[in-house]
């Protein structure tokens, strides 16, 4: 089992964590007209990077969202921080 770091609870078993999505996806302003292309891109397009990735994860027991930085090839964890901390 791999150990992931929750910024709030510390190191826990990977099965306690849930992958939520890539970091930095911003919902288009739906009070204005959004083109089909932009909306489809928001819904479906993934960067799906090979190498260092920054993602939003949830630690299920504390239900907090946080940013996990890891390597998508080696699975090495490079860091984690609360979602609200720092620039997205």
């Amino acid at each position: 089992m791999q150990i992931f770091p929750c910024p709030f609870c510390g190191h826990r078993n990977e099965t306690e964590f849930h992958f939520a999505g890539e970091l930095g996806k911003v919902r288009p302003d739906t009070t204005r007209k959004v083109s089909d292309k932009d909306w489809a891109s928001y819904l479906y397009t993934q960067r799906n990077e090979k190498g260092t990735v920054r993602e939003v994860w949830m630690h299920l027991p504390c239900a907090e969202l946080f940013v996990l930085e890891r390597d998508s090839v080696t699975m090495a964890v490079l860091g984690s921080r609360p979602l609200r901390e720092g620039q997205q």
Partner: protein
Amino acid sequence: MSRYSAGRIFREGLRAGRGWGQAWRTPNPKPAYDVVIIGGGGHGLATAYYLTKNHGIRNVAVIEKGWLGGGNTGRNTTAIRSNYFYPESAALYDKSVALYEGLSRDLNYNVMFSQRGMIVCAHSEPEMEMAARQCNAMQLNGVDAELLDADQVRKLEPALNFSPTMRYPIHGGVLQRRAGTGRHDAVAWGFARAADAGGVDIIQNCEVLDIRIEAGRATAVETSQGAIKAGVIGAAVAGHSSVLAGMAGYELPITSYVLQAFVSEPIKPVLNRVVLCPPFGTYASQSDKGGLVIGGGLDRIPSYGQRGNMPMQETVLSAFCEMFPSLAKVKLLRHWGGIVDVTPDSSPIIGPSGVDGLYLNCGWGTGGFKAIPVGGYLLAHLLAEGRHHALSRPFGLDRFTSGHLVDEAASSGIAH
């Protein structure tokens, strides 16, 4: 190409097999080709073969960064089936099964397609109703399907767990008799040999580093063996589709995950068909060598690491032990992981990439092996004609903008 036959085996046996030549050449890349196909897995090699066979285009190169069939073509559970729900999917995958049915003869290479059948079990009365719906949909789409009750399933697969105290007791199932398994390496090698015989250059150990774009059109691939100009480019790179998209500058709705599979030590015949138990998300078949071939769902995390993680291994194998309690003591021989390209609707992407001169065959997710012949058939059509075949039209990248998804994950509940 010297033909393979029973008589040939006999003759070669008399001269200690010295007459067997290489199955395909190892050429150096030429500076330019009419068609360059990126990816020497099943889909890429099938594309090259159908370009020569159906379209008479022979100035073709297949570029592979590793060895032929070393990616997902060699890392799957070899199931071939067409038990889908929507007419678009049924037409696509049934064409593939039909092509597989004639493939050994077509390629003059035994791909060992064994139509032993596949059973998708139902584990409650509501699931039996959904099984009947699935069965009806398949029959309406012209695909063979039979609804079985528990006794009929027991007759066909007595090794399954029919205990009423099973976690998900078996109530019945859907049988597709034309489904089965094939030999994965033979599919890659058979297509490679037949494509090579048609004049295609198969270039291994040649990694694509960049795509050259001139005036909005993809005109060449920069590789570890130099630049190769291309009239048109076909991309069949499965789990690395997003990496290639990054080079050429188009976007894809694809997430790459690891999919694991397992094979046991060989045992005497015990499992006759491919058996899937959806609530467990686990399925199994028995190879001709006797090994139990076991597969399950995706690992939980997007990944490019070609190996599995422990939680999913635990999930799949504990489910297998519940499905077949008598096989719980069988030892695993090996297990492996492949990188699969999963789309939001679990259907493939076949069509223009958005960059002129570059066409896609990707997004097959966990079900690419069964679709190798049709994937190659349709990408060859796109590369040769520059427009969709009727079968590939519903699977273009534009469906994500227009909203015409072919949502097989939701409709047939098939774990791709």
